[in-house]
């Protein structure tokens, strides 16, 4: 097998687009090495967010990292944003190449 895979965690955060800069800054502070963002819309307890104008747009952030870092980021998010913002996060198991990168 030509590829060496190692387990890591994938943390996905779905939240209001207005948090993009703040969360990106938080992630780098928490020692994250990278993240990926896509634009999203959706629906949840805060109602429908249809992304037809900036105030109703969501983003979807993914962070590949070690379990510890993922839990650390989750704890920070919970503390800083969960009370006041539309936000959903989930953690899953993935296999990666080059584990030292994450």
């Amino acid at each position: 097998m030509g590829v060496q895979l190692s387990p890591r965690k994938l943390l996905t955060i779905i939240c209001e687009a207005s948090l993009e800069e703040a969360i990106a800054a938080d992630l780098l502070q928490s020692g994250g090495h990278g993240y990926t963002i896509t634009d999203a819309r959706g629906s949840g307890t805060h109602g429908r967010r249809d992304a037809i104008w900036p105030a109703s747009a969501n983003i979807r952030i993914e962070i590949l990292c070690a379990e510890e870092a993922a839990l650390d980021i989750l704890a920070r998010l919970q503390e800083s944003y969960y009370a006041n913002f539309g936000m959903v996060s989930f953690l899953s198991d993935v296999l990666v190449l080059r584990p030292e990168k994450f």
Partner: protein
Amino acid sequence: MPFEPVILFFILGLLAGIIRSDLKIPGVLYESISIFLLLAIGLKGGIELAKVPVASLAGPALIVVLVAAIIPFLAFAVLHNVGRLARADAASIAAHYGSVSVVTFAVAASYLLRLDESYEGYMVVFLVLLEFPALVLGVILARRAGGDTRWGHLLHEVFSGKSIVLLVGGLLIGWIAGADGIKPLDLLFMDLFKGMLAFFLLEMGLVVASRLADLRRAGFFLIGFAVLMPVFAGGLGVVTANVIGLSVGGAAMLATLYASASYIAAPAAMRIAIPEANPALSIGAALGITFPFNLVIGIPLYYWMAVSFEGAF
């Protein structure tokens, strides 16, 4: 017609949203046109600014800004003390009403143009100056009970916000380049302005339709506030305009500025600066009630007030 035809596009968007049409204006188009409108208004103001001695505006501008500060304080008192809204919500809504709506300003300008009523071109300078102080006041009001505001962060947020950057940037470019330097750009930024505004109003109609549900949450008190506050602020604007000696058109424009509530700069800034405030309330009131009210009833009313008040002397 008693109102500006361009408003019909707003109504079309609103109806399309209400009947749940699949008409969707891409979010990117919303952003692109809002950038266009802000820049164009800035440019227009800058060209006008080049025609007057800037120093002579300092006094009037100071008065306009100081008087405008009454609006968020009063709004906060009414909402928090009378309406029993939470401090954060009252402060955030106060900031929206203390700041200004660029699109309402543009529709008022169209309205006056149709009536051949001229106004002071440097009005855009007031627009810029009125945009941000209320945002800062809102945060002060929200934090009076304590709490930790990262002020450096907030001020950066406000002054580097896209509205301010485009308005001030346009103003400076217009001022530096002057009418001649800008002439090759007139077709885009001046002549197409109204068409773009029509398109934007179509989008705003769709947005407002999608926020109508918020109004139920808002309750009667807030709905009343969203109609009476602009009328009061409009009156204040007419009086202030007469104090600093503006024309009738200028008085109607200042009244519109005072009466309008921000929904581009304020929602973005307040979401970060006062996160515990519920945006459904502030946006529901500012965009769901005050914005359409101003388009259809407010602007003609403020103009009538401006005409009557001048006639009163």
